[in-house]
């Protein structure tokens, strides 16, 4: 990704223009409907709104929108092949509009946002990976929602108030058991593998 020259930086970055620029630059030679990985990360000026231009990305498996200023997940209609949705380091407050990709989505990357509730995640029945560090998740009831995801194996919650509270009390082993009790299929939690002893201890809880 080339550095942006200061004088080229205008105020807003409509998603449509950012996508057109990517298709003309790093994605050159690929039609929107053929691109499998589309990288609109760390743009200056940042993207603030997702718009309908994304609907053309019908072959896209990995849509990278991290490090922007997006405050709302926009429509994902048309992204029929989407497996990895990357929205880390934006200004998201909640999960929404995931219905269109719920059937194909395998990984959702959401770290460094302001999300306090995971309502809506239940629909993503194929989800294997959820990265949600440094958000505002406070309640165990939000972790409870993840029990509806049979494929979920890699979960990251570091830096949420829920995690920090247990960390500050030097109680991370107990915190891990509390998570595993709710999401017993996890293979990795907060970057560390779940071991057999932990799994057994959580099952007894």
């Amino acid at each position, binding site marked *: 990704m080339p*550095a942006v020259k200061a004088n080229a930086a205008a105020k807003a970055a409509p998603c449509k223009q950012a996508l057109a620029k990517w298709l003309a630059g790093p994605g050159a030679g690929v039609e929107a409907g053929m691109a499998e990985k589309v990288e609109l990360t760390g743009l200056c000026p940042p993207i603030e709104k997702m718009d309908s231009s994304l609907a053309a990305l019908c072959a896209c498996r990995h849509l990278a929108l*991290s*490090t922007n200023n997006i405050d709302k997940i926009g429509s994902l209609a048309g992204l029929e092949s989407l497996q990895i949705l990357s929205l880390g*380091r934006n200004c998201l407050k909640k999960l929404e509009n995931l219905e269109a990709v719920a059937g194909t989505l395998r990984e959702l990357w959401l770290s460094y946002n302001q999300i306090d509730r995971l309502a809506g995640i239940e629909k993503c029945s194929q989800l294997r990976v959820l990265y949600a560090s440094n958000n505002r998740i406070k309640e165990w009831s939000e972790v409870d929602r993840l029990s509806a995801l049979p494929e979920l194996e890699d979960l990251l919650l*570091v830096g949420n108030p829920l995690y920090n509270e247990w960390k500050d009390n030097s109680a991370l082993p107990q915190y891990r058991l509390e998570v595993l009790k709710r999401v017993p299929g996890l293979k990795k939690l*907060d*970057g560390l593998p779940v071991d057999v002893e932990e799994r057994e201890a959580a099952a007894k809880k």
Partner: protein
Amino acid sequence: SDAEEDLASAKPALDAALAALNSITPKDITSLKALRNPPDVIKRIFDCVLLLRHLPVSKATWQDVKGAMVLAGAYEEAVKMMGDMNFLQSLVNFPKEAINDETVELLGPYFAAPDFNFEAAKKASGNVAGLCNWAKSMCKYHEVAKEVEPKIEK
């Protein structure tokens, strides 16, 4: 085997990471802490360390540094991190196997800045520039290990 050869190719990245850390002394950290407003590139290097450790960074904001727009660094969190007496040791013991694809993607925009390299950082602030190489090496290690892991599991 293929997997062994691939792993061996990650070794230079790991050696570079360790050498980068060994070039930094506790005294370097102390003198950096004394600076109210360190050079801009140093703040950005510390953002990368914060991201690798899943510690807080600010909302993405951009600033003009010598004609190029670069991500701004949030220094307060870096100061907090350096307050830990074991800061350097915790980087030596950093669980590199725990790095994930998202983190590597979040570091990408920092790496793209034209002055984000050891030489520029060294000029700006001496030995802590080693952290720039450390962060890059960690990402490189992850990319190699990701290719290797499935082969080992077979």
